[in-house]
């Protein structure tokens, strides 16, 4: 057992200040900064690129939101919580691996024992204000329960609006209609997976 964590009585949570140039304090300093920023040649580089593309008349821009690009299965947008095909119940077993692996510490869950002595996920949240969409949670999930979907259009006044478990979970009517999209990204079941399964002999 290492004692460093107990011997360190610094309670600042590991935050530190980034080393940036000091802001100018007086008028002369501010003036110098304006001049320096204004006369930087980079401005004209950008202007030249725009002018060049304008003259070519070969425009790639799509007319979003009327047009949308197709999203690949491995694209990592807002998370989805999948249901089991057999029973329509939630796939998440509450193992806590996504919570543990999350490098931006944005997943929190709470589990308990339910009346049938089974493990039940009582609370689950992903703080999308913190999430960096690295995909580790989907990768570590042993049940393919949490995956990334293609939904990238989020807008709200509050970041807290993005953390509802109910919004991530496949709606039950989509499920009943057999329209849950299976994840095809990393860790997904490969075709012909069932041929590779070694079965337990049942002769006794």
């Amino acid at each position, binding site marked *: *057992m290492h004692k460093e964590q107990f011997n360190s009585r610094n309670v600042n949570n590991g935050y530190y200040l980034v080393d940036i140039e000091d802001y100018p304090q007086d008028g002369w300093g501010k003036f110098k900064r304006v001049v320096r920023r204004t006369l930087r040649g980079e401005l004209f580089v950008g202007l030249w690129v725009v002018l060049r593309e304008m003259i070519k008349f070969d425009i790639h821009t799509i007319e979003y939101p009327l047009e949308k690009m197709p999203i690949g299965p491995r694209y990592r947008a807002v998370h989805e919580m999948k249901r089991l095909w057999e029973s329509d119940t939630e796939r998440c*077993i509450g*193992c806590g691996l996504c919570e*543990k692996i999350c490098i931006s510490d944005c997943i*929190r869950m709470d589990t308990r*024992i339910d009346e049938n002595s089974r493990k039940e996920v009582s609370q689950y949240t992903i703080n999308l204000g913190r999430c960096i969409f690295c995909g580790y949670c989907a990768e570590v999930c042993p*049940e393919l329960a949490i995956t990334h979907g293609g939904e990238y259009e989020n807008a709200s006044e509050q970041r807290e609006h993005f953390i509802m478990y109910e919004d991530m979970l496949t709606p039950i009517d989509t499920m009943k209609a057999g329209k849950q999209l299976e994840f095809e990204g990393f860790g997904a079941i490969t075709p012909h997976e069932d041929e590779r399964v*070694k079965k337990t*002999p049942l002769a006794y």
Partner: protein
Amino acid sequence: MIHFTIDGISVEAKKGETILTVARKNDIYIPTMCYIAKTTPCASCRMCVVEAKGVEGFVLSCNTPPTEGLEITTNTNALELERTNIMKLYDVNHPLECGVCDKSGECDLQNKTLEFGVSQQNFSTREQNRPVEHWGLINYDAALCIMCEKCVHVCNEVIGDDAIEVKFGGYSSVIIPKNSQTLDCTFCGECIAVCPVGALVSSDFQYSANAWELKRIPATCAHCSGGCSLEYETRHSGINAEDSIYRVKNNFEFTSLCGAGRFGFDFENRAPKSEAAFSAALLAVQNCNAIRFSSMITNEEAYILQELKNKLGIKLFNEDARKLQEFMASYSSMSGKKHYSGSLDAIKQADGIIIIGSRVSSDNPAVRYALTTARKHNGAKIVYAHPIEDVLLGNTMTQFMKYEVGTEEGVMALLAREILRDADLPDEERAFFDELDLGYLSAECNIGDEEIDFMTKSFQRAKNCVLILGDDVIRHERSANIAKLAAMIEKYTIFSLVVIPNEVNSLGVSLINALDKDEAIANVVGYNAPGKFTISSLGGADLDIPALNQQEGTFVSIDNKVLPTNVALAFDGYTLNDIAFACGIKHETTIECTKKLGKISGFKEMDFDALENFFSPYGEDVRGYLLDEVACEISAKLDPIGALPEFNGTVIYHSNPVLQFNSYTNKTKQLQKDSTLQGSAQFATVAKISDGDMIELSFGSRVMKRVFKLDETLKGTIALNPTFDDVIDASRYKYEKSKIVRVVHE
């Protein structure tokens, strides 16, 4: 010393060591499933097989002692195959529920399955219906059980409850409660700790967190003076809440923990920070005449209190520690040294033990477990001298010596006389024993010659003896003389002495503080104790301070060891150090005082951060440090024994139920809180009450209401009055003549 080789490395074994223990000491790996260092090997897993040159077949390394010149091989292909086959059998039909299992991540079966690469099941067996058993604080899932029998061995050999057993039936073997429908034991939870898989789990913890999410904080148990090592495991509770303690674990390979330590961890103080309360507390302390405090504090807090006393010229009241201080002072004046010589380890290794004046199974479970270990592993003869028989020690003690309530001094004199019979005593002391009025003592104490002869006979072959003294003698009005007698036994015979301090740090406080006799004066500040202004970690006080699982500091345990404890949960408010700081006693942190303790009573000048808190892989205890011995002046003389007190009628004994110690254990969620007055049938007859009656109990100047519960296992006119829910004055002698009135409901 026996010399032999393991895998070509020459090793040495002491007498009594097995091939496995020697291999582990020399960092040679032999896999095991059922081996546990603190019990005798149960040899059920057969994983530890090794080959010995010249011996046909395999040898079980866990229970085979080496012989001179033996050549052992631990890793041949044949052995690997044998072990892999054993693992395959363990894995047959084992439910694949690792994703939800509580043990996943710290599971022996999981580790070994991966180690031996068992990836498929080549044979099968018909699975049977094995429902999950709910045994109160413990749940048992037979489907996960691998029948290593660790739980049974620990329960029987170390704890002494002997509450579970194996129901044999080949593949359908299960663990069942012994002689009972449901588990009826003291709920130490040691079976949960040793279970290598998720078969035995804490029902409160089950499915609430996983091994990989919990943060481990090594600490020392804050409930009794046993000073058991434990680890608090914390995690955020819920999705937005603060951290809380989820469970407590211990190094079960070498140490044991009682249920209070294991299940009673949620006694933290959650009060918010209040500056107004702090200013009020500061004013109260600066203007008080005395501080009354309990012994449930760290050494550092005790040191700061002492500094406050020196600075402000106030008095310090702590009757519990003061009684112990007086007792030990009297002991020192006879023995010439400050600390008693025994320890829990000495008890574990002893083969002759006498306990006087302690109901150990509830006073200090650590001592009880040490007694069980001594009994089961060394066949120790254990004499339990007490007015009340204890059913929990039924299998452990070899002789119950029942004496009359209040005659502890006489008992001690009779035993000392017998034990010191052949000792080389100075004339004066010899004269004291020669002049004892044996007839009177024997009659008053109700201890016959044949009982003493039986004890002497059973101790004839004993080489390591321990005398254990409990609270009954520390709080006895003649405790000074008893301490001197105990010191003589320790000084002139092979007996070592262990005194059981009442609270977690009674011993530390008694060594650090200069205490005054408690008196009813005005303006007393209570520090975890009653007073005009209260500063307490129990919640609801005038100023809230952190509880012992929210503090860092040290305790002095029953072993005379200074043990560190760490912060498991954060506390936002103020501490005693802040008050002291404002009073001009400048310590940056409380633990600065750990080093300053160094000038008194055998403490070392060591920084808190330099104190270790773990067990080595070989079971070596590297926690804190042992107090240095301090020489004292020998000045005492034995007092002649006068008339022994008599207790008649409805006598009550202040004693807590097992697993309850104080207001902190009373605060916890899981521990049972039985605050009934438990009395014998005889007691009920004398008091004219019956089972379930509401009674009014009065003793001294105290009156309290309790429900009476008939306990068939108690004998004599006695009832046990719990103290954990209503802390009574700690200096009281534990027996009390009482008046009992039945409360009639209208």
